[in-house]
């Protein structure tokens, strides 16, 4: 039992754009829409996507983590928002508008939010950028051993920390984030041994979404690792599971996005129907060089076959297609 003091890292602690004078801040919504439009335009028109993506990811990290005081809490607020409709429309708008914008974004651009805007994804990208550099210098056996050790270690550390910081009163309700994270991470050692299971573990994302939805409907205050980044809320389970996200990013690139993220599951449902998507000119690919598949951070590519429910729209495959015939952004 212990408490953590939340660091105050936000540049602006008061609302930037007030909705009719109230404490409801419209700045995150406007930022989100602008970043979204910028990323779609970059995907569509830029010759080289990577520099634009890095720019937008940096901007979003700065805006959502260090600038805007309250950013996005969409995990459970939608249910409170629906409850407040008709009772207090101001509050209902405050709780619902980001969720509506995210769904709109998913319908237009698929999981652009994941690949370009989400700070959790950006932080995982940064970690895997460095770990991949180190891994290139090591032999496969060493990497395997280190990964299995680290994945088991991360589970142990998460359980241990949650036992120390577990609130005494409502263990289950307050630790949902940790429970789902640990349950998802428990599959990672098995993937190391049998890579066939990788595709099956991806289904856990939907279980995570379903489980959380049930718990939110009951009315329990659910958190997720993103709360730590978006809200600077040092909630016990959110912070500890965020540590788990960081640790697993070392093992598998964007492991949290692949196996656990409930938002990813929502995007997974909506993205195949999206207006914009990455598509190949000629399927199946005639060249089969496999370069795009090796670059994909979420493993959504298999011989130029794109799994739209997994794709985070980062554009690495489009950039790295050496023959410039395979990938394109389709409208």
């Amino acid at each position, binding site marked *: 039992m212990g408490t953590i003091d939340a660091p105050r890292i936000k540049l602006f602690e008061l609302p930037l754009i007030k909705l009719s004078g109230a*404490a409801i801040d419209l700045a995150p919504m406007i930022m989100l829409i602008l970043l979204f439009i910028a990323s779609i335009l970059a995907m569509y028109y830029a010759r080289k996507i990577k520099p634009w993506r890095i720019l937008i990811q940096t901007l979003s990290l700065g805006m959502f983590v260090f600038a805007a005081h309250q950013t996005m809490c969409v995990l459970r607020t939608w249910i409170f928002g629906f409850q407040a409709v008709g009772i207090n429309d101001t509050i209902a*708008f405050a709780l619902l508008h980001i969720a*509506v914008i995210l769904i709109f974004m998913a319908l237009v651009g698929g999981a652009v939010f994941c690949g370009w805007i989400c700070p959790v994804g950006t932080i995982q990208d940064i970690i895997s950028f460095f770990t991949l550099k180190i891994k290139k210098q090591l032999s496969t056996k060493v990497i395997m051993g280190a990964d299995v050790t680290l994945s088991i270690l991360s589970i142990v550390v998460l359980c241990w920390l949650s036992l120390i910081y577990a609130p005494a009163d409502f263990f289950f309700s307050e630790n949902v984030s940790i429970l789902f994270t640990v349950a998802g991470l428990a599959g990672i050692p098995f993937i190391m041994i049998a890579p066939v299971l990788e595709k099956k573990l991806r289904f856990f994302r939907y279980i995570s979404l379903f489980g959380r939805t049930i718990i939110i409907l009951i009315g329990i*205050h659910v958190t997720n690792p993103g709360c730590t980044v978006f809200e600077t809320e040092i909630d016990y389970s959110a912070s500890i599971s965020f540590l788990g996200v960081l640790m697993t990013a070392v093992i598998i690139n964007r492991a949290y996005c692949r196996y656990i993220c409930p938002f990813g599951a929502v995007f997974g449902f909506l993205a195949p129907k999206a207006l914009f998507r990455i598509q190949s000119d000629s399927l199946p690919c005639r060249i089969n060089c496999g370069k795009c598949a090796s670059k994909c951070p979420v493993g959504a590519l298999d011989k130029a076959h794109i799994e739209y429910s997994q794709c985070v729209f980062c554009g690495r495959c489009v950039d790295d297609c050496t023959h410039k015939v395979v990938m394109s952004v389709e*409208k």
Partner: protein
Amino acid sequence: MKNRVLSSYLSKDKLGKRKCLPMNTLLLIYAMLTLTFSFSFSAGCISEKNKIKPAIDLLLENKTVEEVIVTNKKAAKDSTPNQSAKTIKITESYLSQKSENKTDGFQSQWPMFRQNCQRTGESPLTFRNMNLELQWVFKPSEHTFSYREGTNLWSESAIAIDNNGRTEIIVGSYDHKIYCLNASNGNRIWTFNSGDEIVATPIAGDENIVFLSSDRSIYGLNSSGKRQWIKQLQKWTHTSQPLVASSPVVFDNLFSGGYYINDTYFFDRRQEGYAFLRSSETNEEIWTVLLRRSPIYGPAIGDFKGHKILFFTTSDGIVCAINGQNGQVIWKFTADQQIRSTPVFSIINDKPTVLISARWGMVWAINGNTGKALWSYRTGHMCDSSLAIADIKTAPHQNKFLPDNSKSKSEKIILSGSYDRCLHGIYASSSKRAWKFETKGVILSSPAIAQLSPTAEQLNYSEKIAFFSSMDNYLYCVSLASGRKLWSFKTGALPWPFFKRGDAVFSSPLICNITTQKNKDSIQKKKTMVIFPCHDGKIYAFASKHNKHKP
């Protein structure tokens, strides 16, 4: 560009199917949703502009409150001469008549939520020692309704009044009743039935008890529980929702509070938060203003050289300073998040300061003159309970300073209970944390501050203590200076399995004293009690044990 083949989303693929057919439908739904939202908002904003008098909105920073009041008065006289002049006249006459009639007995008890107009939550009463023992437990014998999740079991706090030498506890309940209990033994004296549950704390006027019920009415009762007057705030319709009322404040036979009426009728939706000032004796309305389209909390009252300024908070995150004379808004402050707590007024560093706790755990100190933020403090999690503030070096209502090593004459400590399971003690002068007291459950009720008399084991001077409850089912007592635990009591658990954040209002403890009479020499003795309407559905009363070794 050359390599990127673009095609319209309406184009057909090889099988002749439209590729993104559901998109049209979904976009249409989205457009409708957006339109609904924007329409309701624009409608709300426009009607708000029409209904609220501009009233020198967000007054220029450099003006003092006195100047504002003068300009406000002039503006009011110029615009609507008859009504405003009448309003000011009534208020002034009330204030001049009643300001000198304060009695000590009235002050010493707990007449309203947070004890006083400033809402500091501090009682001047003294406990003899910390060996508190349970005096009585009260539980409503018959349950008209059963508990369900999120029931507001008791009103935000109970009140204690003196009635012919007998101390009475008055508390509103979820079962639509006002209970009047004898503070010495916990027996029920009378009950009064209203139409709906009573969440707002009743107030004790000079001769009567006033409360707002969720049945959209204000009731005035006499001391024996008979109804004197009733005022309906909103007519009942099939679509009208329960009234959300704030705990009113009482001063000089006037009372002020806020209420939120909500009518979900689609063609005439009403979501209106009003602030009002009324006479508690006759229920004469002095002013009522439409503040926001959200529930209103408060007020706390600040005295600016005889002018009463009322500070309200609204659940959409605004702190308003309102001129007590005519109900005009002097300044507004927008906090970082929604607010669910009552504001507190206090003089800190010789500045009039309004203290609020916002929903995501920020404690804000706002300059009472200008409405600008002075400092902020961040607790670990959400804050729904009201703050309490007390000077740890000065006893209340005494100008005598108590002996202490440090040179400064006063040091105020702000108490903030948070969802991070801690009670935070914050230095009011510097916004630094003095201490943090950890419990095992979230803290939802507001602390009540009392004094502890000097004893041989204790320090040389009286110490301040705070009572607060936590959802780990304990009532705690901590020292204000050091934050160490002095006493705790295990209460019962919630009647339902778990609580949802923010759905119920849990009651706070209060401090009162009772007169005990000894038969032998018939000397009247006062005994200080702490009374706690608990979240387990019972009311507990504690008092100090008789100290045999008293010198």
